[in-house]
């Protein structure tokens, strides 16, 4: 294999495709491919002196195409002019836009004023409501306080009463120096706490007492309600 043939084969491979640019691949991650003969490959030998014929367009076709193109250009120019004017009218720097901005600003100021007035009105209502609530709370607290004072007073009186009762009871207690006498008295006077019941519910006191000894006013056992 000689060198020229190798070169031809390489040329043949490279004729299929080659990347059209380097920057596009690195930036976009895609690669443009030119599916043509590279620019540095000369014209093929078979077409070296070939001159393509100039196509002849018929006269009437030229006239008609010229007319249509003129018409197209006029219409497109008019459309473009219309859109330009409309854009100029409605763009951010146009008179209409500035007028609209002024109107919006005025509306905003008006709404802000309304907002302030509304806030004031609501504030007055809130103040009134809070005052009423404060008064109600105050009345409730005062009532509660009075009630608690009454309760405390009642409890105190009850406690005093209990103390007085207890002091009365304490008087009946057997003192240390009277203990001997009390024991002797108890021994001398025994008490019988036993009792029996008959069918009528009469209490018969004493363990050794007889029915004939029972007094006239017999005590009757009362049932618990």
């Amino acid at each position, binding site marked *: 294999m000689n060198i020229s043939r190798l070169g031809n084969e390489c040329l043949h491979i490279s004729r299929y495709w080659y990347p059209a640019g380097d920057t596009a691949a690195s930036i976009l991650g895609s690669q443009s491919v030119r599916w043509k003969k590279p620019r540095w490959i000369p014209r093929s030998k078979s077409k070296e*002196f070939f*001159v*393509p014929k*100039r196509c002849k367009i018929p006269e*009437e*076709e030229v*006239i*008609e195409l*010229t*007319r*249509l193109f003129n*018409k197209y250009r*006029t*219409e497109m*120019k*008019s*459309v*473009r*002019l*219309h859109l330009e*004017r*409309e854009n100029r*009218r409605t763009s951010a720097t146009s008179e209409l836009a500035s007028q609209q901005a002024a109107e919006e600003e005025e509306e905003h100021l008006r709404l802000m004023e309304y907002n302030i007035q509304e806030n004031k009105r609501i504030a007055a209502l809130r103040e009134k409501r809070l005052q009423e609530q404060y008064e109600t709370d105050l009345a409730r607290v005062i009532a509660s306080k009075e009630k608690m004072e009454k309760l405390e007073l009642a409890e105190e009186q009850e406690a005093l009463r209990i103390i007085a009762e207890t002091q009365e009871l304490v008087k009946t207690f057997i003192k240390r120096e009277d203990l001997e006498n009390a024991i002797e008295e108890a021994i001398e006077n025994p008490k019988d706490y036993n009792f029996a019941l008959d069918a009528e519910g009469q209490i018969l006191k004493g363990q050794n007492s007889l029915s004939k000894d029972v007094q006239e006013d017999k005590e009757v056992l009362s049932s618990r309600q």
Partner: protein
Amino acid sequence: MPIIRIGRTHNHVGMRLWEIIGRLKNFGIGRMVVRSAFERYPEPTYYRILSARPLMDRGQPFKDEDNMKGHVLVERVFRGVNMGVVDLSRTAFKMDYKLVPKHEEYKYIQAAEESCPPEVKILPETMEMPPLLKILAERENHEYKRLKVSVKKTGTYRIAKEGETPTVELSLGLGTPASLQLYEGVLENK
């Protein structure tokens, strides 16, 4: 040795202006030349050379820069109208110029004197909108509901003034065909 040109052809017929000038006495000042590209108009178009300063002997003809550059002033008559003195240096290299013999110059002058200016077409001031743009204009409340016709300031077209009747009708669609034979079997069906 005759020159044989190979390759693609063009529409120009004639020689470079520098070739003509270089062969004439006193660089052809006072002579009349014409361009074949303007022969398509019914009115004559010609140039009268006033001054010429060609850059000569710059290389081989048709290979290097010989007969390619220079400064030339001419009096231009375009479509029968004298346009005054113009600088023709930029287009003088084109192989489109022909020298008019002195005994034939009167034909051009006479034709220019006899020619009348072409009829000015008057276009309407406004035209109808395309359908989609019409819908858009109504929806977005555009200022104008018809398109204002825009044309360049040429001698052949102008916009109609107030109270003037336009001679050209602008309408959407095909319009009036210039060559009816191209639409055989197409327009008849409609």
